[in-house]
């Protein structure tokens, strides 16, 4: 078996934020690789710096030190190459669903008629047809997150950065959208990096799980997930599922005890 090709590699990324008593280190030399067509989940205690990692990858924050290499080339950030779905469903309130979804295509300068076609197609796939002209205010939480997800997928980025995309949803919708995401990733051959606080979700969806430690954060461990189920529900019924789940729970539990001490 050939070794998977590395798409993005982070090497010794450090980042601190200014605090009252001097700089507060958040990322403390973060090193990990993301392969082509990978599905990596990042889990870690709350406030450990998961969103910060994404901001660094997306080129919104400059790391204090460390390098990022994208397909063999050292880059400062991946602006324009990532589809970043932020932790809150960030829709433009003055744009309709259709206009929100088309944002990325506008940015890329895609021909308008073609962009419209693509957007309509995605909206119907995600069960949002009929809501093209609705404003975000009028949508339910799940519909908003679906719109944000479409906006991220439709840009056809090299890497999808999804920051707790389903955290605000009920279990039902969540299972459904996990399935939709897996299908979309499968169809369009995307690389996905998913931040989640839900171990269950991480195991069910990912090929690999990166566990981060407490702040200042380092990579604690990386776990390969060997489930090859095609659906999030299938994965959850795999007999090995609970083993992975237990292992990852164990990793995070040790940290909570350490914090208490």
């Amino acid at each position, binding site marked *: 078996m050939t070794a998977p090709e590395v798409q993005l590699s982070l090497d010794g990324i450090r980042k601190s934020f200014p605090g009252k008593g001097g700089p507060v280190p958040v990322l403390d030399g973060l090193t990990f690789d993301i392969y082509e067509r990978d599905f990596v989940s990042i889990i870690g205690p709350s406030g450990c710096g998961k969103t910060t990692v994404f*901001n660094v990858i997306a*080129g919104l924050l400059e790391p204090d030190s460390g390098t990022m290499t994208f397909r063999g080339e050292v880059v400062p950030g991946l602006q324009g190459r990532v589809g970043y779905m932020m932790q809150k469903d960030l829709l*433009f309130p003055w744009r309709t669903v259709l206009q929100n979804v088309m944002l990325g295509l506008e940015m890329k300068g895609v021909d308008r008629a073609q962009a419209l076609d693509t957007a309509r197609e995605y909206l119907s796939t*995600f*069960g*949002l047809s009929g809501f093209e002209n609705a404003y975000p205010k009028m949508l339910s939480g799940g519909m908003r997150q679906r719109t944000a997800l479409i906006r991220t997928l439709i840009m056809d980025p090299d890497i999808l950065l999804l920051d707790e995309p389903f955290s605000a949803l009920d279990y*039902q919708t969540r299972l459904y959208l996990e399935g939709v995401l897996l299908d979309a990733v499968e169809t369009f051959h995307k690389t996905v990096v998913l931040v989640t606080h839900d171990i269950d979700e991480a195991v069910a969806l990912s090929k690999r799980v990166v566990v981060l430690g407490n702040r200042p954060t380092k990579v604690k461990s990386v776990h390969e997930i060997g489930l090859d189920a095609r659906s999030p529900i299938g994965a959850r019924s795999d007999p090995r599922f609970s083993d992975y789940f237990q292992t990852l729970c164990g990793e995070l539990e040790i940290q909570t005890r350490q914090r208490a001490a």
Partner: protein
Amino acid sequence: MASQALKTSQPSNPSQIPTTAQTPKASARTARKSAVRPRAKPGAVARAADTMLGRGIIQLLAVAVFFLAWEVAVRAGWLTEFLVGAPSGIWRVFLASMRDGSLPVDTWYTVIEAIIGFLIGTLMGSVAGLGLWYSAFVARLVEPFIVAINSVPKIALAPIVILWFGTGFVSKVALAVSLTALVALIAAYQAARDADPDLQALLASMGASKNRVFKSVIVPSTLPAIIGMFRINIGFALVGAVVGEFISSQRGLGHLIYSASSLYDLNTVWVGLFVLMFVGFLLYHVIDFAERRILPWRQVITTGQVQV
């Protein structure tokens, strides 16, 4: 249509979805609703009158009562007509000045001065305020100057403005500009600074340039505040025009009011004031109308929202 589209968006294979959790909650909700409905709600009378027509009738009634009381008080001798005027006298002056054409002309002058002053001042101020978003450095640099200039009561500038721009039309416009420009600048700058940083970050992650962020985030997200400021500025522009006319002018509602009051012609003063009031009211609603057209996303149905 909405419910239909919602249905198609449901999970495609319901057999695998845990549905039991949903049922008790849903039935509890309907139970609560039906328990509340039969009870007569407090404030039912107020709600029944709270329609366009209902409100209009009440408002007209209030105005009628006010003028009636005023007229009665003057006729009964409780108020001196010499000092407060009287509705019947006001009406007579109004008709006469409409007939000889002087009132429409005066009104026209004041309105045009105010509108031109409003447009120039608001436009310049808004553009400058939004422009400051581009450079935090420049913004911090000019901030103390803006604060200093803004703390001068602009009306105090009126004599200088008259000296510089003469006693005609231009000086009134200039005064209106001086009253509106800084308000617009501060409002626009504040709104631009408050624009959601996450939306800006999102666009940046898509590789957007600063100009693009300005166009796609800053301008649309500041529009509500800027249009809100229009309402304040239309009033200020009228103040500028009228004060300019007070000081030196041959025309305009300010001139009308000022010269009439020096002759103790209270009824004419009231005509000027009421026309001003009416003009301000009208312009306010023009802006309201524009707002509804420009910001459709803010108009999304408010029915079904929680009433506190």
